[in-house]
C-alpha cells in the first residue's frame, strides 16, 4: 500500500439537520456545515475555532462517522466515511473525545473504562491489558488505574477519556471542547497530554476549542463561521488578522491583543505575536 500523506480530506462537505413536524413532513432544514473543503496531514495538530453554532461539533462528528455527509465527501485515512463497510475502521482510526467527561466514561473503574474500546474491537485479553497500561501511562494516569472515575477531578477524568481513545490505537484524535468544563489546572493537564500524544506518538490531533491559548500549539488553524471554513493557516497567520477575527466574533490570545492595541496606538510591532515572551522580546527590541 502506498504511504499516504493526508489523514483527512474533506471535499465540499455539507450537512443538513432536518426537523420533521408531527406528520413526518420536512419542516425545517438547518445547514450546519456548508460546503467545507480542507485537508489534514498525518501528524498535524489542527485547531478549529468558531463562534457558538458555527458547525464545529457537526463537522467533528463526521470525522468519526457519527454523522455522514449530506453532500460532498470525507475521507479519513483514505476511507470514504459514507461507505457503510468502512464504518468501524473509520471509528477505530479516528477517536473522539467529548466535552463532558462524566458522560463519556462507561466503566466503573478507570482501567475497565480504558479497556472498553479494545474490548469492542475484539482485541485479545492479554493485549487489552498491555494497551490499557500504555495508554494510561501516556496520559500520566497509571497510578489511578484502580480508582472509581467518580472520585477523579475533571482534568483527570478527561485524561482517562483520552486514554480510552488512545487504547484503540487511532491514527487521529478529535477533541470537541475537551477543556470547556475544566478549571485552569485541569485545562493545562489535558492540553499537555494531548500535545505529548501528538509529538511522541505522532497521532494527528484535531482540537476544537474556545480557548485561544490552546490554539498556539497547533500547526494549522481552521476558523469556521456559519457552517463554512472562512480562514485557514498557521496560528501566526490567523492571529495577525485581528480585525477579521473580530468580525467572526472571536477573541485572540491576550498577548496578541495587547500587541495589536499597542500597534494601533502607534508602536512599531510585528504582526502575529502569540505569546507573552514574544511580546516582551519585540518590545525590548524597540528600545
Amino acid at each position, binding site marked *: 500500500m502506498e504511504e499516504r500523506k493526508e489523514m483527512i480530506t474533506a471535499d465540499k462537505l455539507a450537512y443538513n439537520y432536518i426537523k420533521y413536524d408531527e406528520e413526518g413532513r420536512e419542516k425545517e432544514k438547518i445547514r450546519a456545515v456548508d460546503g467545507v473543503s480542507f485537508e489534514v496531514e498525518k501528524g498535524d495538530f489542527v485547531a478549529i475555532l468558531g463562534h457558538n453554532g458555527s458547525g464545529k461539533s457537526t463537522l467533528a462528528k463526521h470525522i*468519526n462517522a*457519527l454523522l455522514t455527509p449530506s453532500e460532498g465527501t470525507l475521507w479519513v485515512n483514505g476511507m470514504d466515511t459514507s461507505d457503510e463497510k468502512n464504518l*468501524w475502521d473509520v*471509528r*477505530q482510526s479516528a*477517536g*473522539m473525545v*467529548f466535552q*463532558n467527561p*462524566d*458522560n*463519556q*466514561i*462507561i*466503566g*466503573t*473503574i478507570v*482501567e*475497565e473504562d480504558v*479497556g*472498553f*474500546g*479494545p*474490548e*469492542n*474491537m*475484539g*482485541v*485479545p*485479553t492479554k493485549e*487489552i*491489558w498491555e494497551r*490499557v497500561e500504555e495508554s494510561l501511562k501516556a496520559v500520566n494516569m497509571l497510578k489511578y488505574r484502580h480508582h472509581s*472515575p*467518580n*472520585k477523579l477531578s475533571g482534568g483527570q477524568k478527561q485524561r482517562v477519556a483520552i486514554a*480510552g*481513545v488512545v487504547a*484503540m490505537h487511532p491514527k487521529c484524535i478529535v477533541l470537541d471542547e475537551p477543556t470547556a468544563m475544566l478549571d485552569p489546572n485541569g485545562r493545562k493537564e489535558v492540553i499537555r497530554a494531548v500535545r505529548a500524544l501528538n509529538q511522541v506518538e505522532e497521532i494527528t490531533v484535531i482540537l476544537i476549542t474556545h480557548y485561544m491559548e490552546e490554539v498556539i500549539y497547533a500547526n494549522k488553524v481552521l476558523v469556521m463561521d456559519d457552517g463554512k471554513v472562512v480562514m485557514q493557516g498557521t496560528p501566526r497567520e490567523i492571529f495577525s488578522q485581528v480585525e477579521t477575527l473580530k468580525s467572526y466574533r472571536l477573541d485572540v490570545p491576550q498577548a496578541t491583543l495587547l500587541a495589536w492595541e499597542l500597534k494601533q496606538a502607534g508602536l512599531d510591532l510585528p504582526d502575529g505575536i502569540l505569546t507573552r515572551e514574544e511580546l516582551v522580546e519585540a518590545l525590548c527590541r524597540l528600545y
Partner: protein
Amino acid sequence: MIRDITLGQYYPADSILHKLDPRVKLVATITFLVALFLINSWIGYLVATVFLVSVIRLSKVPFRFIVRGLKTIFIILLITLVFNLFLTPGDRVLVQIWKLKITDRGLHTAIFMAIRLIYLIIGSSLMTLTTTPNDLTDGLETLLGPLKKLHVPVHEVSMMMSIALRFIPILLEETDKIMKAQIARGADFEHGNLIQRAKNLVPLLVPLFISAFRRANDLAMAMEARCYRGGEGRTKMKPLIYTGKDYCAYGILLLFLAAIIAVRVLL
C-alpha cells in the same frame, strides 16, 4: 459526599469468599435456597446451620453486617410467625387463649418457617456482601450466556445494569444539587400534606429527567464512537476463569446438597 456511596452492600475484606468466582457464589446461593426448602427435619437444619456458620466465618464479614439484612424483613417474619403459630391445625393443643389455639404442629411449622426465612436472607446477604455489583452482573451475564440462543438479550441487560451502577451516584448528586438550587429559590420539599409535597417534587423531577436524557444521549454517542456494537465479537478485559478454589467450592457445595438430600430421604 453522595458520590462515595456504595451501591448494594459490598463489604470489602480479604477472604476466600471474596476471591471466589461470582458464578460460584451465585450458584451456591441458589443451591442453598433450594436446600432450605428440601429440609424437613431438625437434623437437616443442623447440617444447614453448620454450613452457614462455616461460610460466615470464612467470609470475614462482621456479624452485625450480616444480620442487618434481617431488619428489613422483621415485619414479614413476625406476621409469618404469628399466622403459622395460631392458624395451623394440629392434634394436641398446647396453649389456648380465648379462641386462638397453639398446637404442636403450629409451633413446629412456625419455628421452621422462621429459621428458613432467616437463613434465606443471611444466605443471600452473604453473596452481596462479598461480591461487588460489577462482579455480580459479570457473573450473571456469563451464567445466563446460554439463554442468548433463545434471543434473551443477556449482554444488553448486563450492560444496562453496569451503566446504571455508574450513573446512579452521579444522578443522586445531581438531584441533591437541583434540590438545593430550588430550595434557594424558595421551594419547599418538607412541609405540607402528601399531595402538596408530591406537587412540590415536580420542579425537581423535570430538570432531573431532562438532564438524564441528555446524559443518555451523550453516552450512547460516546459508546458508539468507541466502536460499541453490542455483545457480538466482543472480547473481555477481565474474563471469568475458574481456578482451583472455585472447583473446590463447587465440590463442597455438592457435598452439602448431597447431605441435605440424604437426610431427607433416609430419616
